[in-house]
């Protein structure tokens, strides 16, 4: 029985053979799933839920991020489906989600896409699709406010100039919340920015409070050094953000198999060229955090160093955590894209910061 109109025959045959576009909501310990999905040619990890047909929830999503997860769920256009890996959908508050074991993940995704195209499946929205703050039609022009003021749809504040205007002529400041499931950002990180044009004028970086992950999440349990996965997934995500899709797949594939120091050296040769990855990262995101100054290039070189050391069987010191207030201060004045890339370049440290259990009550 079809729940939506099926896609007509010929189109469905072609579409059914396309890679499944997935948006991955990454929780704690979700990196191996992310690498597995990026490495597989039957799947395409996309940049926004709008481009996806399936939402994949990878790893543990704490209680505090459920609302955001449900909003992300609703942003995938119907007909849509959600796949959770190794747990039941109820554990992330999406009871209709398809639960798939990690070993059969990609086969499961292909089957779900097939059902979607055949019209056999469509997940309902979780949240209501109405505005909690009535504003439309209010005011002399229906703009929701007085004079030239607009309303506050979804409680979002109007863009307003900051108090101190340079020469009395200030660009409006647009308040914006990014995360915790924005593609490429470190998992479970919420970034509140105030933008003037595309320049970050105000910023706060806040991890979603962690809760105790219940038992086995089914996303780990491999005896390979996880530092290799952490660093290589961070690199693959960075590559995807700066438009090097092919290299991102190559790195992700490396992260899913056994890694030798030679593999890492080969990767370094491909990336560490003036017109390679470095065009996006040299001199960008120069941060001075707890004594370790450097640009994004310095940070991804350090990932490769750590991955090589771990692959060689050496002991690698744990990733330090970060002073988030100091980080936020360093992001001020950056172009929005540069700020987001800077955060992506701190993925291992920020993942460590967000994974810390909340302060015991």
């Amino acid at each position, binding site marked *: 029985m079809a729940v939506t109109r099926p896609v007509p025959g010929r189109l469905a045959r072609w579409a059914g053979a396309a890679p499944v576009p997935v948006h991955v909501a990454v929780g704690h310990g979700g990196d191996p799933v992310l690498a597995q999905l990026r490495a597989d040619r039957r799947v395409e990890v996309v940049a926004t839920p709008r481009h996806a047909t399936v939402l994949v929830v990878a790893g543990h999503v704490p209680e505090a991020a459920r609302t955001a997860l449900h909003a992300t769920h609703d942003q995938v256009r119907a007909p849509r489906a959600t796949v959770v890996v190794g747990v039941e959908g109820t554990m992330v508050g999406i009871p209709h989600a398809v639960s798939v074991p990690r070993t059969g993940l990609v086969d499961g995704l292909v089957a779900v896409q097939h059902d979607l195209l055949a019209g056999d499946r469509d997940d309902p929205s979780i949240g209501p699709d109405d505005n909690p703050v009535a504003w439309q039609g209010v005011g002399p*022009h*229906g*703009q*929701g*406010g*007085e*004079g*030239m*003021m*607009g*309303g506050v749809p979804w409680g*979002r504040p*109007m*863009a*307003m*100039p900051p*108090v*101190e*205007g*340079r*020469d*009395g*002529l*200030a*660009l*409006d400041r*647009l308040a*914006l919340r990014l995360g915790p499931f924005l593609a490429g950002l470190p998992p479970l990180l919420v970034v509140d920015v105030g933008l*003037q*044009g595309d320049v970050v004028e105000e910023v706060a970086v806040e991890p979603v409070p962690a809760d105790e992950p219940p038992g086995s999440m089914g996303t780990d349990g491999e005896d390979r050094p996880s530092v290799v996965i952490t660093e290589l997934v961070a690199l693959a995500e960075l590559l995807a953000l700066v438009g090097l899709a092919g290299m991102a797949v190559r790195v992700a594939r490396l992260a899913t198999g056994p890694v030798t120091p030679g593999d890492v050296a080969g990767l370094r040769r491909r990336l560490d060229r003036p017109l390679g990855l470095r065009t996006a990262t040299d001199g960008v995101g120069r941060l001075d955090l707890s004594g370790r100054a450097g640009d994004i290039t310095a940070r991804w070189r350090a990932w490769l160093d750590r991955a090589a050391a771990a692959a060689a069987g050496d002991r690698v010191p744990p990733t330090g955590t970060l002073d988030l207030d100091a980080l936020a201060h360093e992001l001020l*004045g950056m172009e929005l894209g540069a700020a987001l890339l800077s955060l992506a370049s701190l993925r291992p440290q920020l993942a460590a910061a967000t994974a810390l259990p909340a302060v015991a009550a």
Partner: protein
Amino acid sequence: MTGTWVDIAFGVFAVAAAWFGWRVFVTDSMVRATFSLLASFLNVGAILVLLLAEYLGVAMFFMMGVEMTVMAIYMVAFMMNPAGLNPMQMVHQPRVAVVVGVLSTAGFGAVALAADLDTVAIVDPDGTIRALGHELMGSSMLVMQVVGVTLVATMVGAVVLSAASGRFGPADVGSVPPAIVPGDDTTRPGVDVGGDGGGHDHDHGHGGGAHGHDDGGDA
């Protein structure tokens, strides 16, 4: 045959130019108003091409495209919610504007219809036009070139001076917004004059009214 098509095309472009010009004032968004104006200019450019002023027409596409985009960017960046799509009124002093508009249209229309325009092709018997062309493109060329380079240098200089990372250090250090009433420092933006709370005052005072209004007027 060709003449008929040119007449039809002229009519279409002229009506479209006027219609888009009208849209500028009835739309409720700054960006829509700006690009309606652009569409109007594009139609005028097409009319110039029809009049065989090919370069002038195409150059109009070029220049108006850049100008209107820059104007739209300034308008959205100075007042966005989030992309400036919440409705707003795009006109100031509408009654005066209507009166002036009707009078000037009547004036130009009267000139166009009543004046006895010359329809004979100009033959340039004494070579005035040719001499003018030689003057502009010949001995005066150097002056033109110098003027052009000076204009470019001025634009680049303005960008350098206004950049936050100016060559004389951060450009915004020590800059103070001017007072709204000259000499009265209490009217300086950012100075809390007391009474109701500072933030609230800013939200409704100059944020919503003053500069938003000015931006709209430029359209």
